[in-house]
């Protein structure tokens, strides 16, 4: 038997490189003869392009070339659409307007590229941007979701005749009938704004075309190296094998780096072939705020129908969703809202409709949480409001509606981002809530501590919410595992890694099967020269989808090693064991052969091999789930609000989570804590603010507030429950977005509770000190 490695709290393989400054990030790539790109971006959010004069810029010493849309000739094209429309949903309307790589004729958001300069240094390239003369004819911009659909609103895409990007309705059961039978029907409107992904490393792209070998190498920090490779090859008329995309160490992803059709992806490879010079482009922070992607802006009109005992009979939600100026990423975000609204609850009648709208703002694509938070927020808020009305505690109303353990697989009847019905595979939802309630000592707080603290004049409040996290969607990922003559193992997979600890967790999956040390497994992610199948890192799918492919490939290698050892050692298979890099006879440890020796024998240089044998101790495997695996959990928090400034101290923060089989608890804890910190940012600090002209008012880290060490609770209390998923061999479910999803809902409940005597009702997110102050002042009027 091999040692149990899966589930061990193992320190990360990748740390020493990262800690000593020896890890290669995209901006660290230095190539001989490399030149630098800088983009000129529109100051206007909506304008016709009258002329762009690049003649002066081209004459600046050190400038190699300047291009506008016209200069790309026939190569200029929009798209592709990165995510297909949701045709699986009957009656779905979707107006595809993929991203143009550089604006032609018209500008549709502030920050859209107008020209690109290539120069000997980034400094010179940026100097030359100031030499470009641009004549724009400003148009009225539209940023308001509802007004964008009113007659006479400025049109983003004139040919479309409307700003409607999509209209998709889904219904499970019959909401109208359910509400007719209900004792109580409550209606509310919610406005949810969201923020930037704000990875600490901005986007980056280096491209090198070698004319003699007809080979293009690209270093990019994207989350989807294989789709990027495919796009570049298709754009340039190259075969996929002529383009190698390498994602080195990546300084955080959180969503936007999934894009593979931005200006740099499309334009720089083409330019590199023409100039025959390697080109580097590194996004600056302002560009990241204006022109990468973000996630924001939904308005929900919600109804909940209940019995007087608090049992939900039905839920209805019609919402506007802002997709920004284009919709290259299809409907992933609002479809996640569709599948996460009923969340942890057993609701027989559910209606959901998204009206997706084009506005003069940057495009919207998934950011950690990706639409899930919106669904969870409105459901949890409505439960809070219903609980107050029905005189139930927030915990009670949830307990009465949770899906029970014997109801799995639970069919929701709603089609999700992966275009199949959302089926909740497994879990123990009552147990996660119960554990969170116990950990935070809910009753003790409400009965003893809160009254005492209130008597002292303190504004303290508690919030408890449940959430689901749909993860690990298809289509598939793959991996190849190889043992070489040294006995060391290499595993390659197509997904890229942005700090999730894959170099360790994937190594653990292999180490357990192949019987080697975790440190002896080299993990290569996101290099199409090593492995060229796969879709990418998104939807908390890396550890589960790629993980299962790796685990399966490692199992095949294990079997291959045992088969060969059985022949060499002339011992039946069942008497062999594999451990410490050696296959040995269980009862006669000295009768053994090393994996390295087996690898060498599996790959002979002379003689013959078994005609059915594939050479080497190597195997490839793929894993594609029938539908996503759904994690679930509960959050409980206690806040202490300053009654003058509305500054908030989070006194306690409890999160209980079930992500099935845990590969590495250390990495899991880190993922949860990081997600929570983003959730806290989304609750009270982070908000991209657009004015009515489509200008971002806080496009820097000085003005856009990311949570700091002093904003976080001193200690997060983490609880885990493990209900393995029946969908995959590992039993795993994703966890990457968990913390970000429920936190704003828990925060709102806790704030309302802390300020109970003000009788405010929180119907928006994010909040902030000034929003809370204003809300209280309004109420007091």
């Amino acid at each position, binding site marked *: 038997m091999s040692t149990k490695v899966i589930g061990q709290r193992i*320190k*990360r393989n*990748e*740390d*020493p*490189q*990262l*800690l*000593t*400054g*020896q*890890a*290669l*990030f995209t*901006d*660290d790539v*230095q190539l001989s003869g490399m030149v630098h790109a800088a983009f000129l971006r529109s100051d206007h959010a909506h304008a016709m392009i009258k002329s762009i004069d690049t003649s002066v810029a081209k004459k600046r010493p050190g400038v190699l070339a300047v291009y506008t849309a016209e200069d790309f000739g026939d190569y200029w094209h929009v798209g592709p659409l990165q995510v297909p429309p949701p045709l699986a949903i009957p009656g779905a309307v979707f107006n595809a307007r993929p991203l143009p790589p550089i604006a032609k004729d018209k500008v549709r958001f502030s920050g859209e590229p107008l020209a690109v300069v290539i120069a000997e240094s980034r*400094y010179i390239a940026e*100097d030359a941007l100031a030499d470009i003369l641009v004549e724009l004819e400003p148009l009225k911009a539209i940023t308001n979701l509802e007004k964008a659909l009113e007659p006479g609103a400025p049109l983003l895409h004139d040919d479309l005749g409307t700003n409607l990007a999509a209209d998709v309705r889904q219904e499970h059961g019959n909401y109208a009938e359910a509400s007719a039978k209900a004792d109580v029907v409550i209606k509310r409107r919610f406005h949810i704004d969201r923020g930037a992904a*704000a*990875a*600490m*490393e*901005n986007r980056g792209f280096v491209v090198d075309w070698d004319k003699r070998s007809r080979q293009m190498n690209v270093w990019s920090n994207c989350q989807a190296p294989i789709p990027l490779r495919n796009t570049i090859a298709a754009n340039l008329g190259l075969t996929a094998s002529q383009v190698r995309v390498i994602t080195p*160490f*990546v*300084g*955080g992803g*959180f969503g936007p780096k999934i894009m593979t059709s931005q200006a740099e992806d499309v334009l720089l490879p083409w330019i590199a072939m023409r100039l025959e010079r390697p080109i580097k482009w590194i996004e*600056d*922070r302002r560009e990241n705020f204006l022109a990468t992607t973000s996630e924001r802006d939904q308005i929900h009109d919600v109804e909940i129908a209940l019995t007087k005992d608090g049992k939900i009979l039905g839920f209805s939600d019609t919402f506007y969703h802002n997709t920004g100026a284009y919709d290259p990423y299809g409907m992933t975000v609002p479809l996640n809202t569709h599948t996460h609204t009923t969340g942890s609850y057993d609701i027989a009648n559910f209606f959901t409709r998204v009206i997706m709208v084009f506005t003069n703002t940057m495009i919207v694509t998934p950011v950690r949480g990706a639409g899930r938070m919106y669904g969870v927020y409105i459901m949890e808020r409505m439960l809070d409001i219903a609980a107050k009305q029905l005189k139930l505690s927030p915990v009670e109303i949830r307990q009465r509606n949770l899906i029970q353990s014997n109801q799995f697989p639970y069919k929701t009847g709603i089609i999700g981002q992966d275009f199949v019905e959302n089926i909740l595979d497994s879990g123990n939802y009552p147990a996660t809530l119960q554990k969170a309630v116990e950990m935070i000592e809910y009753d003790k707080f409400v009965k003893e501590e809160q009254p005492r603290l209130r008597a002292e004049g303190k504004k303290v409040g508690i919030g408890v919410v449940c959430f689901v996290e749909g993860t690990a969607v298809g289509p598939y990922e793959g991996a190849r595992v190889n043992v070489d003559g040294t006995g060391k193992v290499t595993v390659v997979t197509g997904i890229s890694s*942005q*700090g*999730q*600890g894959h170099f360790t967790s994937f190594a653990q999956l292999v180490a357990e099967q192949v019987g080697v040390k975790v440190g002896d497994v080299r993990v290569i992610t996101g290099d199409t020269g090593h492995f060229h199948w796969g879709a990418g890192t998104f939807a908390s799918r890396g550890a589960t989808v790629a993980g299962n492919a790796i685990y399966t490939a490692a199992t095949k290698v294990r079997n291959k090693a045992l088969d060969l050892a059985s022949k060499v050692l002339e011992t039946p298979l069942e008497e062999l064991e594999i451990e410490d890099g050696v296959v040995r006879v269980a009862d006669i440890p000295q009768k053994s052969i090393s994996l390295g020796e087996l690898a060498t024998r599996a790959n002979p240089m002379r003689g013959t091999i078994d005609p059915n044998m594939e050479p080497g101790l190597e195997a490839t495997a793929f894993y594609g789930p029938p539908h996503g695996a759904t994690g679930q959990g509960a959050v409980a928090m206690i806040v202490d609000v300053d009654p003058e400034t509305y500054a908030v101290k989070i006194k306690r923060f409890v999160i209980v989570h079930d992500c099935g089989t845990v590969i590495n608890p*250390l*990495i899991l*804890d*880190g993922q949860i*804590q*990081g*997600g*929570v*910190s*983003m959730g806290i940012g989304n609750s009270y600090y982070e908000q991209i603010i657009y004015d009515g002209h489509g200008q971002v008012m806080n496009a*820097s*880290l*000085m003005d856009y507030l*990311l*949570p*700091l*060490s*002093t904003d*976080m609770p*001193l*200690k*997060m209390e983490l609880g885990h429950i493990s209900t393995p998923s029946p969908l995959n061999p590992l039993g795993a479910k994703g966890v990457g977005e968990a*913390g970000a999803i429920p936190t704003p809902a828990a925060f709102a409940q806790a704030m309302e509770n802390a300020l109970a005597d003000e009788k405010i009702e929180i119907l928006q997110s994010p909040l902030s000190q000034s929003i809370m102050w204003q809300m209280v002042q309004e109420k007091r009027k």
Partner: protein
Amino acid sequence: MSDLYAIKLTVNGAVVEREVEGRLLLSDFLRHELCLTGTHVGCEHGVCGACTILFDGQPVRSCLMFAVQANRHEIRTVEGLGTMEHLHPLQEAFHEKHGLQCGFCTPGILMTMIPFVESHHNPTHEEIREALAGNICRCTGYEFIVDAVQLATQKMHAGMKIAEASIANAIQEKR
């Protein structure tokens, strides 16, 4: 813009002489002229702290300084801490406590905290959080960074105690 200035400075203990443009940022000088790419650039506004280095022993934002300002000064970057084989106690503590995920902000955080861990023997979590508050980490939520810093101070302090004790022993034995 092509006026060049001769500068001479010490970087990680080695004397460096170069001719640079007056406008060249210290961060770009370190990264692109000296190829010390461990120092990362996250915002170029001095907010995120990823580019923090030690300038005459004090943590500074290298994106807010020009290379010429470093003339005749002493700089230490993350490459001047430990090596992969022999990590500095602070680096070791980050490894031990999972104080990093993507690792992009980490070199700046390490350099910010070096003077802190050298001068604080047993800091509270609040003190550590205060010292960290000028550096943004998007991945970790900070808790494991705080744990790592605390562990490092304990290790370094214990190390000093041992060193002090062994010196005292040596003196004793000589007598």
